[in-house]
């Protein structure tokens, strides 16, 4: 079968090379710059321990990513559970709502939130008009706004991951638990919830990692006041042209992401989780 082997490599090799060139080379280059600019060495990485502005951005990023993850998991679990219980028609409507964000520009959606939540926006107008509050609430250009926007962007990822996990759970298991004498609540707590653990872990990791590196939503809804890592990187590279610091933070982000993925792969079967 030498001819079959040859034609196999003729197909697979170019594709492999292209993937490496497109995806690994640029990232490797970032790593290289982070230890060579402005001078060779680990000096840039030292800033992680010495620069208070870097540390503040890191802490803000971790805090927002963590809160976003918690909220997205909580709301996502509710929605995914409801989707599983819903009729086919309602399932389709919910899936449409969940998939919609993927099709519509993140930028457009961020501006939509600014318009909705701004001091002049309909939400504040309604609250003030109905007499519930006297002064408009500050819902954007602060951490509240960033969190609303982030949860909005991340929720579909959480829902889809949890829903895929829940769909894989045999409905017969809850029925079996009931027939063996368990109440609704017991069946949920002892059978269903433990079986969604891989989904919770997977969705949590996914949302947390994506939140760490998100740029558009925090930049727009934070109004420059809530500086997360990605925006910090953009400022360093675009405005102050400090490539070394920018790439160091980008590299740190990448390493953190890969580390988190590796940790995840120890706990659950990642491939099965995403149906790959």
């Amino acid at each position, binding site marked *: 079968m030498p001819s079959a082997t040859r034609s196999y490599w003729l197909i697979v090799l170019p594709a492999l090379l292209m993937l490496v060139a497109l995806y690994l080379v640029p990232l490797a280059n970032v790593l290289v710059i982070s230890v060579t600019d402005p001078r060779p060495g680990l000096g840039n990485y030292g800033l992680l321990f010495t620069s208070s502005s870097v540390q503040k951005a890191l802490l803000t990023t971790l805090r927002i990513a963590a809160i976003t993850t918690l909220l997205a998991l909580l709301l996502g679990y509710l929605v995914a559970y409801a989707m599983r219980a819903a009729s086919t028609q309602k399932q389709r409507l919910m899936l449409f709502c969940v998939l919609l964000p993927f099709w519509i520009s993140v930028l457009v959606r961020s501006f939509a939130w600014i318009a909705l939540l701004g001091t002049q926006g309909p939400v504040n107008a309604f609250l003030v008009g109905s007499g519930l509050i006297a002064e408009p609430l500050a819902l954007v250009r602060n951490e509240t706004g960033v969190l609303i926007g982030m949860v909005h962007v991340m929720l579909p990822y959480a829902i889809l991951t949890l829903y895929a996990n829940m769909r894989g759970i045999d409905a017969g*298991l809850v029925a079996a638990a009931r*027939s063996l004498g368990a109440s609704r609540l017991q069946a949920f707590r002892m059978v269903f919830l433990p*079986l969604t653990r891989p989904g919770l872990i997977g969705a949590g990791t996914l949302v947390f990692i994506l939140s760490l590196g998100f740029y558009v939503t925090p930049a727009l809804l934070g109004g420059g006041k809530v500086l997360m890592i990605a925006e910090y990187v953009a400022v360093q590279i675009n405005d102050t042209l400090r490539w070394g610091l920018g790439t160091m933070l980008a590299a740190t982000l990448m390493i953190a992401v890969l580390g988190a993925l590796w940790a995840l792969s120890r706990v659950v079967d990642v491939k099965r989780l995403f149906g790959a």
Partner: protein
Amino acid sequence: MSAVRFIDVRKSYDGKVDAVRALNLDVADGEFLTLLGPSGSGKTTTLTMLAGFEQPTEGSIFIGAEDITRVPVEKRGIGMVFQNYALFPNMTVGENIAFPLKVRGLARAEIAEKVGRALAMVRLEGLADRRTLQLSGGQQQRVAVARALVFEPRLVLLDEPLGALDRQLREQMQYELKHLHERLGVTMVYVTHDQIEAMTMSDRVAVFNTGELRQIAEPRRLYEQPESLFVAQFLGESNALPGTLGDTGVVTLPGGERVLATAVAGKGAVTLVVRPEKVALGAAAALCANCFPATLLEVSFLGDQLRLRLAALGREDFIVKLANAAGQGTLEPGTAIQVGWRVEDCRALGH
């Protein structure tokens, strides 16, 4: 007193078509009753209502003296074995079997003892700490049975529990389940679409079709004395010959042949049913009340049986089955031979 009683039960999912209608069914205490039928016949709906996953649209269901029509699933105290076993993958074998005891709040020591006995009962001693996914199909099936029996339910339901097993294991498990039933004496209601399984295992078989209970009887009676063409054809192979029933049990076939039959229907159009294994050939045929000339067309060798196709009574698909017993003579296609059968092996069924 019967263990289970369905009284005038009707079930419709969509308000238009009845999945089950006019169902009156008694299950005797300690009986092994099988609900048999093709898919969509209502057998599974009947089981589902008895388990409590669905409520009847009309009518009532009793277990013993208690009306359980509106009692929720978990309060019915029925053990159930599902088609795919429905073992909890997040628990070990032992935890699975302990589940019904745990939710009933039994003490830890009592649970351990009962689980141990249940494991011994299904011959899985020593596997309590295995994960369920590490078990073979037959072992998973046994765990499911142990879990359904461990809390000593008054009634056990089995929903095609052998459907996922291969032929050989399936036959073995049939005998295991049957012996378990004989030993424990618990009432069992079993659902299957496999007629051989139903006949081998059951005390009685209830045959369903299009939402109706068509006949309920002991296996042999059902097979040899079917009351409708559906039952005759669903259980085993038969020669079905349309004809006209006249007086005194004589059926006239389209070709003018007259057959003496056991009349189940009234006069008029009927279908004669003759089981292929009840037909005698050659000299033995001449001794039967019904005897006709035939020509052998084809012999199929099935191992333990020979299946003959003959031209007889104006048809080319008259089937006769012979055991491949010792000293069976040779059979050459083309040979002229007589076929015959007794009056009691030939039933004239209405439409």
